[in-house]
């Protein structure tokens, strides 16, 4: 299993061929994805055409850059021109977008070979990919377990060697949590760092485009190729994009690491607690200073998130009405048609959140729910700002538990609590990364989360890279046969 930088370095040297590599991945998907269920759509012809073009560029000694020819998978939440894009929902089963998302356009411009579209919880609502309208995705480390979610297909594809890298979306932890569950790297950059144009919206103020990779260098490469201002996204940040690979100095000397008390309390799996504390010790050994900090508003995170996200979702999903595209179930009149279409097209979790959100925005409740949630969000942000006066990064567990079994968390609330450590960075828009930091006794991966300052992805990547290079975890891969 090779990383993106290993592959493209080999392409440049002539030691490997983009077409042969693409064929290898497609063959592997053909042979193994029936087990994993990572892909909803495999774009074989497009991938081979892109690989041939990349190969021609390498032959002409004019590759487009360090992603040229890299075989990548995209969460089925990104609009791809001419390629079915479902957002994991029955209501978009047959939807073929007429345009490419900005992230897709930028990846194509960088020469990436898109292998296909990966499975996800419907409209990115979930933490296990079990809410996909189409199929289960299995964790490559233990096929009886979930890969996490909502970007479960992307994480499983990367962990299982069915793609060299992938892009997912992280709204409350939807990239970091599956990265932790599948033993890969997942990074949610600062809100607005990567354009959301063409990302099928779940919760607009929380949705982040986020890469999943085998190592930190690959994260730096994918981030560097896709970050930056987009005139099509008014919330995208107009700030220069540094050379993230150059930022990977290998050193954390003098780095101040904060350890928030509130992330090591009740509900945290003791094996994860131990692994994360060992990881923090490792950072100290490498020259970082470590101190305890407090983020007192942490306990309000999940409740606040489950007001804001459903409220925005109820609005964003209003457009699926059977009138213009996607599923239409005929009815006796227009209102009946819309009702029947939405009843048949949306799954239970989506309906639950649309109802929650509709309620939260209703006249008379708006201020008590959405208004109040936004005020709490400001307080959470202040907590972090205060902590970042003293430290450069925060180190926490990514998840309170390791990958659970399919069907294990039938209670929605139990599922929601799985995002307790990832939600605060989502609500504040701060960059955060999950890196593998070991395995439990059963051999399931554990993730260390590092949270950084706004737009300071470079420091985050530098710390994660130094840790990765000093530990063996990223080199361990599941065996799928």
């Amino acid at each position: 299993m090779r990383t993106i930088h290993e592959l493209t370095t080999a392409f440049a040297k002539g030691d490997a061929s983009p077409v042969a590599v693409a064929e290898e991945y497609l063959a592997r998907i053909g042979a193994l994805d029936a087990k994993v269920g990572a892909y909803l759509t495999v774009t074989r012809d497009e991938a081979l055409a892109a690989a041939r073009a990349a190969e021609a560029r390498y032959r002409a000694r004019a590759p487009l850059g360090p992603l040229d020819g890299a075989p990548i998978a995209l969460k089925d939440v990104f609009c791809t021109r001419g390629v079915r894009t479902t957002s994991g929902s029955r209501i978009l089963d047959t939807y073929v977008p007429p345009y490419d998302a900005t992230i897709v356009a930028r990846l194509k411009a960088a020469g990436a070979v898109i292998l296909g579209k990966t499975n996800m919880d419907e409209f990115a609502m979930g933490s296990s990919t079990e809410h996909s309208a189409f199929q289960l995705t299995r964790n490559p480390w233990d096929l009886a377990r979930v890969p996490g979610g909502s970007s479960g297909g992307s994480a499983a594809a990367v962990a299982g060697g069915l793609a060299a890298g992938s892009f997912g979306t992280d709204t409350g932890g939807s990239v970091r949590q599956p990265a932790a569950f599948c033993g890969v790297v997942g990074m949610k950059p600062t809100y607005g760092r990567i354009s959301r144009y063409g990302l099928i919206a779940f919760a607009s103020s929380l949705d982040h485009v986020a890469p999943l990779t085998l190592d930190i260098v690959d994260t730096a490469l994918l981030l560097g190729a896709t970050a930056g201002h987009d005139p099509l996204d008014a919330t995208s940040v107009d700030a220069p994009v540094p050379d993230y690979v150059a930022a990977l100095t290998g050193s954390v000397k003098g780095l101040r690491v904060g350890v928030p008390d509130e992330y090591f309390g009740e509900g945290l799996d003791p094996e994860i607690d131990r692994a994360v504390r060992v990881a923090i010790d490792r950072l100290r050994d490498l020259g970082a200073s470590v101190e305890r900090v407090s983020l007192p508003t942490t306990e309000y995170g999940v409740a606040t998130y489950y007001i804001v996200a459903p409220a925005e979702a109820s609005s964003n999903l209003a457009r699926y009405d059977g009138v213009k595209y996607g599923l239409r179930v005929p009815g006796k009149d227009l209102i009946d048609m819309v009702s029947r279409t939405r009843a048949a097209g949306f799954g239970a979790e989506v309906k639950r959140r649309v109802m929650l959100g509709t309620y939260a925005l209703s006249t008379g409740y708006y201020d008590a729910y959405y208004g109040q949630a936004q005020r709490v969000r400001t307080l959470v942000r202040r907590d972090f700002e205060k902590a970042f006066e003293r430290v450069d990064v925060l180190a926490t567990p990514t998840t309170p538990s390791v990958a659970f079994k399919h069907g294990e968390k039938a209670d929605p609330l139990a599922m929601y609590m799985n995002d307790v450590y990832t939600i605060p960075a989502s609500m504040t828009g701060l960059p955060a990364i999950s890196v593998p930091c070991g395995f439990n006794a059963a051999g399931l991966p554990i993730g260390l989360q590092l949270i950084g300052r706004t737009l300071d992805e470079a420091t985050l990547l530098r710390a994660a890279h130094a840790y990765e290079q000093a530990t063996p975890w990223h080199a361990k891969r599941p065996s799928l046969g």
Partner: protein
Amino acid sequence: MADGKYETVIGLEVHAQLATRSKMFCGCPTGFGAPPNSQTCPICQGMPGVLPVVNRTAVEYAVRTALAFGLRVNPACRFARKHYYYPDMPKNYQISQYEEPLAEEGALDVEGPDGLRRIGIQRLHLEEDVGKLVHEGDFGTAQSSLVDYNRSGMPLMETVSRPDLRSPEDAAAYLRAFRAVLVALGVCDGNMEEGSLRCDANVSLRPRGATELGVKVEIKNLNSFRNVQRALEFEVKRQSAALDKGERIVQETRLYDADRGATRSMRSKEYAHDYRYFPEPDLVPLKLDRAWIEQQRAAIPELPRARRERFVVQYGLPPSDASLLAQSRALADYCDRAVRVYAQNPKGIVNWITSEVLREVDAADEVAVTNFQIPPENLAGLVKLIDDGTISGKIAKDVFARMLTSGEDAATIVKREGLTQMADPGALGSLVDQAIAGNPKAVADFKAGKTAAAKALVGQVMKASGGKANPAMVDRLVQEKLSRS
């Protein structure tokens, strides 16, 4: 009409389509009358994944309008989503402004029968338009419907007046004055037929002398000045009849049916919504820099009221003529251009505009006025020819008619057709002599003290000259010769 018993209270919400080249949140063109769905893109069709981007020109136009009405432009404003399900609205929410509008608190001075009245304007905000639905029959029972999204996402500026209007005529006058300002600013073409200007009215009645407002009824779908006035007249009659019978007015939304000349209640299904407003998370708050706002203020051209005043002072026009011209940017521009070429007689030019030009074109039709066959410079030339005695007023009307068809200037026509008036005392003198010789009765009447008899002789001479004689000179010669004979 409200008789003495009730006072009518009206407030108007005006939606003006801004004359930008592209839509409010995407790059689609805004032309009128294109084939259905030919001016659309994923954004204004509400496709999955799209995001809005604010059209800066629309903001500029809205700020200029706000400043023209003396509204306070907020340093920061926000867009909000307004939700309801209707197939003409592709996202099932409209991006509008709610709690934090672009501008608040201003006024428009409206000329009414009792002079100038200041009508308060509560707020001004930006929003996107919806598409157009074509269904066979009623909303509920239609067998099929088609949607045209060309209009979806067009930039709209909504302006809400205070309930300061006191009659349907008042309301129509407000709308006319409002339109004149928008057209003068160049932010809206003011074309009500094409829907560039649309109006909803809130109307209530209260016993004369009462200070509390009565129950208000909203009337939608007022798409011409005539409809605004007629719908309001109908509604005032309906409400006063109901009040007379001791009935209570129901707070509701009514639709004006222009064919029947009546308003009808909309079924609650058509409008009863909880709009679930919340700040549009896809757009950041719009921050407007002070200096930039001042730049916009500097870009405001002369507005109708100022223009009217200038016409009175500079051109010596009666206020009624000045108002008529200032209501139409095109007409006022026409007048200014004509006067620029011939500054000696603005009143004469305006007389020709208000009588002859407006007989040919509708004053409210800006485009027709702008494209009028006789350019203002040529009208000025015509008036100059009258003033310097080259042609008579009577001949001038013929020349005007020829200018209309040929597009030539007055001097060219006069020269070719030999229409220059006779001002040669010798030639005219012999015509006068002939008239005196041929009308002994008129001469006798004049001698007997009937001075009016001289007029008959002047008429004879004019006729004999084919209208070309200089009337003043003829008059002088007749007087001279009669008193000498």
